[in-house]
């Protein structure tokens, strides 16, 4: 039994590599950060096409669409007791940009650099923060980006106590590490919970932040316990060793939902699972082959078994819930049609191919299923399993034939996916912008142009229509076979009240949860 004032979640938190919001870019970290740090604005979980204020009381956009002015709520305090001022916000932006870690691009794409950030993101008084962008982007785009965890507000005073001096060099122009080393495991936020401890592959412990300005959490403590296996999570849940199981697989979901003491909840997430075909491969390059492959997935069977309850068949690159998502699933398993297409492509007897597959579920199962359906059309597919990092390394080096992967949006805006699936400014091996299109050696300049245009469309409805158009074209012609969109499921003990999963990974809030 878990203590009454503590929530224990079983969760596969093995992706966490840092707790610094300026550096972290992992899904599990996003959940922890969103529960322990505050932002200027947050996604409105009741209507995901909108944002609402968090630290910001209100905001306005200038007519030229370049300047965003935020007014902060008053009397706010960090967990440390330090007051939250616009200066902290500005410094958090500056810090993220100058650190220049993985998620920094979410901010720098608005034209911020280390040299100009102090000017472009600054506090004009204690309560006013002004943010200037370089182009008249769609405001929904800018605000959506500001809901990303990289924009979390850190306690400047506290962090400055922990900075480590470094000697500037060609790579790194600044004389300190902005507290990065300390913040990897430390905490300087103002969210509903304080981060008490993170031990890699073991545990994350959150404790109630009594200085939190919003609704006080009901529980004293939230513990994320590292558990990888679904069956283990289920066991522990049934035994009452954990309150919530976060990574259940279909069979275990069934069992949990049948158990009188337990319940399940779910929410669609922005993660898309796809199979991509590398255009470096002569066969896979052919449009007919690409289309044939889209007919060689047994979507129905997969939907009814392997991803039952944890995903929904989805064949476009924008996940449901995001602006402009297209909900069309035209492809079905059709071996005859596929054979026809293969014949047209000049490979009527099929060919041999490899696929790199992470050895986790459900991708392994899907890969095995595809192996069988492809075989029906004469395509011999060999599975090369590997640890996640290993297959990714290969993927990023473009040495794969086929790859089964998942893609979660970097921030909750259609541009994130549109950019990575269509953009490819330099298709040479030396290309530095390693979008998914680049990784599969595929160029679609027309679609890319359309996506860029949508970015500057300030009317949200029109913007949505533009993205739908791109997706339609993409469906017909691309080396990506989209399979499903993830649904996040959790099983919990019925003693847990008010537990809800949000629409994205940084909206799974634990603050409202109570236990009886």
């Amino acid at each position, binding site marked *: 039994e878990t203590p009454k004032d503590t929530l224990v979640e079983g969760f596969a938190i093995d992706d966490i590599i840092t707790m610094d919001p300026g550096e972290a870019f992992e899904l599990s970290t996003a959940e922890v950060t969103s529960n322990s740090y505050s932002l200027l604005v947050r996604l409105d979980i009741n209507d995901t096409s909108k944002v609402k204020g968090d630290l910001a009381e209100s905001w306005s956009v200038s007519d030229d669409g370049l300047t965003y002015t935020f007014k902060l709520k008053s009397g706010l305090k960090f967990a440390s007791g330090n007051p939250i001022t616009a200066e902290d916000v500005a410094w958090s932006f500056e810090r993220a940009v100058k650190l220049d870690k993985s998620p920094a691009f979410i901010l720098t794409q608005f034209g911020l650099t280390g040299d100009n950030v102090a000017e472009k993101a600054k506090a004009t008084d204690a309560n006013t923060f002004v943010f200037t962008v370089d182009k008249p982007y769609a405001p929904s785009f800018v605000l959506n980006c500001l809901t990303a965890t990289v924009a979390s507000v850190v306690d400047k005073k506290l962090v400055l106590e922990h900075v480590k001096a470094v000697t500037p060099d060609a790579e790194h122009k600044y004389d300190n590490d902005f507290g990065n080393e300390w913040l990897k495991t430390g905490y300087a936020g103002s969210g509903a919970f304080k981060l008490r401890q993170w031990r890699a592959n073991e545990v994350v412990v959150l404790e109630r932040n009594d200085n939190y300005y919003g609704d006080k959490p009901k529980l004293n403590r939230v513990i994320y316990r590292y558990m990888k296996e679904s069956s283990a999570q289920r066991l522990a849940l049934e035994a009452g060793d954990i309150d919530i199981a976060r990574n259940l697989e279909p069979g275990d979901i069934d069992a949990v939902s049948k158990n009188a003491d337990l319940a399940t909840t779910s929410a669609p997430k922005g993660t898309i699972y796809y199979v991509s075909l590398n255009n470096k491969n002569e066969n896979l390059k052919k449009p007919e082959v690409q289309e044939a492959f889209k007919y060689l997935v047994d979507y129905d069977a997969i939907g009814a078994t392997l991803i039952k309850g944890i995903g929904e068949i989805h064949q476009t690159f924008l996940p449901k819930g995001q602006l402009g998502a297209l909900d069309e699933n035209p492809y079905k398993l059709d071996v005859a049609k596929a054979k026809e297409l293969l014949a047209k492509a000049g490979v009527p007897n099929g060919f041999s191919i490899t696929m790199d597959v992470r050895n986790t579920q459900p991708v392994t199962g899907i890969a095995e299923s595809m192996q069988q359906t492809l075989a029906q059309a004469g395509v011999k597919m060999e599975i090369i399993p590997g640890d996640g990092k*290993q297959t990714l390394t*290969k993927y990023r080096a473009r040495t794969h034939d086929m790859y089964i992967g998942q893609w979660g949006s970097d921030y909750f805006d259609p541009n994130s996916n549109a950019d990575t699936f269509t953009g490819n400014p330099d298709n040479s091996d030396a290309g530095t912008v390693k979008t998914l299109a680049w990784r599969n050696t595929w160029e679609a300049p027309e679609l890319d142009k359309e996506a860029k245009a949508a970015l500057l469309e300030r009317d949200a409805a029109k913007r949505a229509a533009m993205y739908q158009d791109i997706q339609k074209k993409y469906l017909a012609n691309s080396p990506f076979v989209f399979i499903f969109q993830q649904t996040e499921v959790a099983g919990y003990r019925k003693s847990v009240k008010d537990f809800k999963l949000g629409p994205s990974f940084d909206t799974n809030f634990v603050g409202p949860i109570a236990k009886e």
Partner: protein
Amino acid sequence: METTQEARPRKGRAGAFAKALGRFLFAAVTTYFGLLAVTFFIGRVVPIDPVLAILGDRAPAHVVERVRREMGFDLPLYEQFYIYIKGILSGDFGNSVLTTNPVMVDIRRAFPATVELATLGTLIGACVGVPLGVLAAVRRGSIADQVVRVVGLIGYSVPIFWLALISLVIFYAQLRWVAFPGRIDIVFEYTFTPITGFYLLDSAWQGQWDVFYDVFRHIILPASLLGYFSLAYISRMTRSFMLNELSQEYIVAARAKGLSETRVIWGHALRNAAVPLVTVIALSYAGLLEGSVLTETVFSWPGIGLYITNSLQNADMNAVLGGTIVIGTVFIGINLLSDLLYRTLDPRTRNR
């Protein structure tokens, strides 16, 4: 005709000992170096981009390039190795990418967990295995012998992870006799401060018996499983050593003295069998330290085996190397220790 030879001259014993020690140290150092070299080069040819492990998949290209240079991954292998060795000689094992802690800190946490598990396992194995082996040898060919033999053989033949899974289902899921995988219930993590890292000892020492009970419920299943495996080995070796000793002439002499069977077996035969048995138990202990890799995986035991496996899968080479060095040290240490024990137990090798 063969007779006892004159005792060899004693002079030069101290010199010989120093020489033996020197040879041992030299061997240990070269073994270490080889160990390091092999692991290092394996680590560097692992088809995982180490930078990926540090940054994750979605890092922009320029960040990746920068980090790669910062970490020295663009240097030739031998240069990286040189830098690494230099670091180690100055006592720096580097930081783990995965946990961001210094590797030594991680190991200090993980190592006691493994040692506690393996120690308890060996204890179980030895306390049950030795009497069983003796019994089998004394009752050679009897039903008891066959049973011990089959029990041992099954121990040799069953996949440990499979047995672990099955027993977890039975003893945890069905019977609820034991606690969930892990070392200690999460709630105690905050009321209990380990000192040595051996939770059983620590909790008993501090008189926290509820913690002790909880820790016990966690460790007992994996330890029993490991114990079973060492039991298989130990009972088998005990049997064979005992049979060997029981066929010796001094056993006949002991019986001729009118000693009871119990004394002959436990006082003479086992005392002699104990000499090689120490080595066997030490070996099985070392074996459990490594055998715990799979057990630790199944039981989420935060020990060194799990640490190395995790690190390896993430190309976290500092951690892998650190862990390997520790295990290597323990192996070498155990060998030395069993050698010393052998010497103390066997007067024939004792220097007087």
